[in-house]
Every structure is written in C-alpha cells, then in structure tokens.
C-alpha cells in the first residue's frame, strides 16, 4: 500500500439549510484512482469544491500528506499541489490554448511541466495552440483542462466529470489517460463521474454518494460486480 496523499474525514458542507456533503470520509493514495460515483445532486461536485477550498466545510477535515488544509485560500491549496479540474467550464474561453496552458504552470515557475509535453499527450491541442479556447470542441476543451492541470505537476488531481458530453471513444481515451497519469506520475486522482461504468473501469477504488452520504465503498472490481448496488445507485 503506497502512501496516503489525500485524507478526508467527517466532511460536512452546507448551502444554507441544505446539507450537500454529509459526513464523508475517504482517502486517496499516491498513484491510485478513486472514483466518486452517484446521481445528480449526490454531492460529488460539492465534495471536490470543498477539498479545493472553493467552499468552506461546516465541519470535518481535509489533509494533504498529513497537513490540514483548513482555512487556506484556494490559491494556497493549489500551490500545495492540489489541482482541481472543474466541470465543463474549466477553460478560459477568451484566452488561447497556449495561454491557458501557460497559466496552469505560472505559480510553479521553472518547475512547471513544459507545454510541449502536453501537446505530446494531446496532439490535437498543438494545432489549436494559437486559437481562443472558446473555439475548441468539447473533447479538446477537456484535454486542455486536464493538460493545464498537469502543467503544474500536481500531487492530487481532482477531476469533475471529465467525460461529460464527450463521444464514447474520446471519453474512453481520457479515462485511460487518467489511469496512466496516476501510475506514471504517482498522482492521487479523485475522479467524480456520473458514468459509473467507465469510471470504475479505470479506478482502483470507488465510493458511491447518495444525498451527501457514502452509501457504499470498496475496490472498483467489487463495486462493478455488486448487482444490487448497481441497480440502486449506479443505473447500469
């Protein structure tokens, strides 16, 4: 078992009277992919937004390599190595592809990954480097958001619905890449997905959220095999 990078304990996040995340515990190890599954409104996105500091938790802790992230500003948390790829609108449409990528690594200075490496991972982006990100297709935008997160060489990667709205083939490529990333760069990946089947295919572990609570967790292969769970929460 490799080292735990991200540790979440008893996390509770509320929007007014609504408890979006209700006592979640989970941990992600170096080089591993943990899938967070569940229907719309299960609290998946809020969980990620709480971890990256965009929303403040009501209670509970988030630790990165044993260090508490409590009260830190988003940009501080990012600089500790947590990269959050938000759902859908992650690219800055007014900036070019290259500017988006450059932005991802600015705080790293010389330690950033050369943009060239992103183009090797995602060749379609190379042809679009000078074009505004607003002109990219959905798949290209997703590649750009993920590539931009990688430029900063994160320790923990929070991916929110990376396959949303993508053609199945592109979606599969992205999932494969996520798995490779985690293994080759020893990144801990927390992968939020509605598409449980494709997420579990690349994940090591999975947790299933329902109304903010974890209703099931285990090895990805066990979750896939569990018929009742699939029918009740995962819909396939």
């Amino acid at each position, binding site marked *: 078992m490799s080292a735990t990078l991200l540790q979440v304990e008893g996390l509770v996040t509320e929007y007014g009277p609504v408890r979006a995340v209700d006592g979640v515990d989970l941990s992600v190890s170096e080089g591993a992919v943990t899938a967070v599954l569940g229907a719309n409104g299960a609290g998946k996105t809020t969980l990620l937004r709480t971890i990256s500091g965009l929303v403040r938790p009501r209670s509970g802790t988030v630790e990165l390599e044993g260090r508490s992230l409590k009260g830190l500003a988003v940009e501080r948390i990012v*600089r500790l190595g947590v*990269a959050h790829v938000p759902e859908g*609108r992650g690219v*800055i449409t*007014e*900036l070019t592809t290259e*500017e988006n990528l450059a932005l*991802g690594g*600015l705080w790293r200075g010389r330690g950033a990954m050369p943009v060239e490496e992103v183009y090797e991972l995602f060749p379609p982006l190379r042809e679009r480097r000078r074009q505004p990100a607003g002109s990219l297709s959905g798949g290209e935008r997703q590649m750009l958001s993920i590539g931009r997160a990688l430029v900063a060489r994160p320790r923990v990667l929070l991916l929110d619905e990376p396959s949303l709205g993508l053609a199945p083939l592109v979606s599969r490529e992205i999932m494969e890449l996520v798995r490779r990333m985690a293994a080759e760069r020893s990144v801990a990946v927390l992968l939020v997905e509605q598409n449980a089947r494709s997420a579990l295919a690349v994940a090591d572990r999975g947790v299933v959220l329902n109304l903010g609570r974890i209703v099931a967790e285990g090895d990805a292969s066990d979750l896939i095999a569990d018929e009742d769970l699939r029918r009740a929460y995962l819909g396939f």
Partner: protein
Amino acid sequence: MTRFVDLTLNGISTGAIYAAVALALVIIWRSTRIVNFAQGGMLMITTFIASALISSGASYWLAFVVALLSGFVLGGLVERLLMRRVEGKPPLNAVIVTFGLLILLEAVAGMIWGNTPRSFPPAFSIRGYSVGGTRLLFAPNDTFIVLVVLGSAALLALLFRRTTLGLRMRASAFAPEVARLLGVRVGGMLTLGWALASLMGSLAGVLVAPSVFVGPNQFDPILVFGFTAAVMGGLDSPAGAVVGGLLLGLALSYVGGYEGSALVTLAALVILLLVLMVRPQGLFSTPRERRV
C-alpha cells in the same frame, strides 16, 4: 480649410485625454464589471497633489511623476478598502459606493484646497506650430499629450498581451474562479488593475488640467466624456477606448468649432444616447459570447 485642420488637430489632442479616462474606466469594467464613477474625483485629487507640489516650488516633472504614482496608490487603496466589499454584490451597490466616493473626494478637496479653480502649467509650450505663416491650433504640448497617451496605451497593451503578469490579470478578469484554481492570486490582480486604471486617470488629469483648471468640480465633464468614449468603444475593449476617445474628441471639436462650445456637453450626451440606442455593444467590440 485651416479651420477644419485646426479643429481636427485639436480634436485629436483632447480626444487623447478622453481616451486615457476611457481606458481607466475600461480596465476596471473588464476586471470587476464596475463603472468607476469616482474616477473623476480620484484624478482630481492627484492633480491637486501635483498642483500643490508645483506651487511649493517643485518642478513640473516631479509633480507629474508624483501625480501618477499617487494615482496608482490611490487606485489600489480604493479597491482594497472599499470596492472589495461590494465586488460580486448587486451592481447597484458598487454604483452607489463609487458615486459616494466621488462626492466625498470633491468635498474633501474643497475643504483642503478651496473651491476656487486654480491654474495648472502645461508640460510644454502651448503656442501653436506655425506652418507657412499661419499658426495652428496644435502646440508642442498637444504633441506631448498625444504621444504620452498613445505610449501609455501601448505599454498597457504590452503588459496585458505579452507578460505573464498580464496573462494573470486577464485570466482573473475573464474567469476569477478558474484563475484561483490555477494558483492566481485574483485579489492581488484586481488591486493591481484598479491601481493601473487609476494611474491612467491621473495621467489624464494632469494633461487636461491646463485647459480646465484645477478645482473640486473642474473634472466632472472629463468623466462624462471619458465614459462616453468608453461606451463608444464597447466598455470592454481597451483598443475601443482609445479609438472611442479620439472619435469623441474629433466630434466634440467639430461641434464646438462650428456650432459653439455651449453645445459640446450636450453633443457628448447625445452621442452617448445614440450609441446606447443604436449599437449598445459599442462600435468596436467583437461580440464574443461566453459559452459554457
């Protein structure tokens, strides 16, 4: 014909000043979606500082530099201490705060320096160039005004387009939340944006002061003209602000020259209304919708 040339040249010179005010408004609008109505008061204060320095014996250029620097600092302070509290709140809050600040600054200036307008020296001679025996309505000081405004606009464009600091500032303006997720200190970028905008405003103040004099309310028209120029340019586009400023300068110069100077402010408001009715997105903005 000479008259037309004179009015054109004069329009370019005053238009450059409107362009500087318009730039100050556009930089802030782009990053915070706030129209800084206090800009007229802020540039009035920094011009008063320059004026006080000059009357105490300092050189023009020292006063010039101090005015710009105090504009930079004042802009940053206004963002940090006041505007930060209304950013992201309903737009009316910001409108009221900037208007309140304008009134406050004008009152404070009146208390410190009095309400009688005082003269302000130009940087260079205001005796027009003579061409073939006739003297133009365009002097070395006008050359200076046009060059310094266009030069500053070019420097700003370089900063925004070619530097990583500018990239951070643009990212903070377009998508603050994403920028934060990429490690950009968005708050600092907003403060810097206000500081730079206010510096441009102070530049306009010092440049226009010789012709409007320095007093608590002497710069109100400049704010109206600068706002009109910014709206003409689309409010969102720095290049549009410069072109809008020059076009407005020309238009008002022709109106003032051919129809009488009493109509100038009225003409500016008519232009503002026409732009808002006919082409509210501005003459130069390339409408780019933000798509999800």
